[in-house]
């Protein structure tokens, strides 16, 4: 009897799990504060920044200055289909899906003066608070 109950519980768990989907989309690598420690305002050149961090995802002008932007984006999505549990007892189960996706963007921005020397740099961080959450309400 115990084995039978375990089998039922295991099957129910598998069907419940089969209704879950954890998805992550990551665009580029995250740039950490440690990776930009080499940058010194008024000293570091654009060539040194490119040698360490690669080419930026975006290049723009700000007056006579040149701006490099390195971007990182992450999306976390969790989808739960509670209808899958009903498949144990029913040949056709309705879809009962709750799902939510969260996207965050990080950016590291460096501004160079007309000589190609770093004038300023800054981080924008929005990806840390992203989490898997299926509750859409």
């Amino acid at each position, binding site marked *: 009897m115990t084995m039978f109950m375990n089998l039922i519980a295991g099957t129910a768990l598998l069907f419940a799990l*089969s209704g879950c*989907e*954890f998805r*992550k989309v990551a665009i580029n690598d995250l740039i950490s504060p440690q990776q930009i420690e080499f940058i010194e305002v008024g000293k570091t050149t654009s060539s040194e920044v490119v040698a360490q961090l690669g080419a*930026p*995802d975006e290049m723009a002008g700000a007056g006579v200055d040149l701006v490099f932007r390195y971007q990182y984006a992450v999306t976390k999505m969790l989808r739960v289909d509670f209808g899958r549990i009903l498949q144990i007892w029913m040949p056709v189960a309705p879809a009962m899906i709750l799902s939510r996706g969260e996207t965050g963007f990080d950016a590291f921005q460096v501004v160079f003066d007309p000589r190609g020397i770093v004038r300023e740099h800054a981080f924008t961080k929005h990806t840390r608070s992203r989490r898997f959450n299926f509750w859409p309400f």
Partner: protein
Amino acid sequence: MHTFDCRTILEHSTRAIVLVVWLLNSWGCAFIRGNVGDEINEVSVANLKKGTTTRGEVAAMFGAPDEILHAAGREVFHYRHFDGKLGYVLIISRLNVKSDNLYVLFTPEGMVHDVVYGKRTDNLAFQVWPFGE
């Protein structure tokens, strides 16, 4: 007793293998790769000479740029190549996307002033684990 333990382990292992095979068969797995744009030819990038190569020669080497920017008083040709790898197993999946970028900055006379190139796609990996970084 020792024989019994070995047999038990064997039975559990067999069940585990059967379960994994059944799970993979039931829900499946997938490894998918996608590209956007042509790969940037690194030999051609090395052939770009500051103050010598013209805008027309750049266009002849790499084709028309994906984007033309105007930054800090200079015209910039921007070339991009995206690579994406998706790993999907059972109920978890992860899609990694990275890009290679080439920026060619020109002088007002239409000569190459500077070249900014970076290749990220060579260390793009197939991953399925969506948790953590």
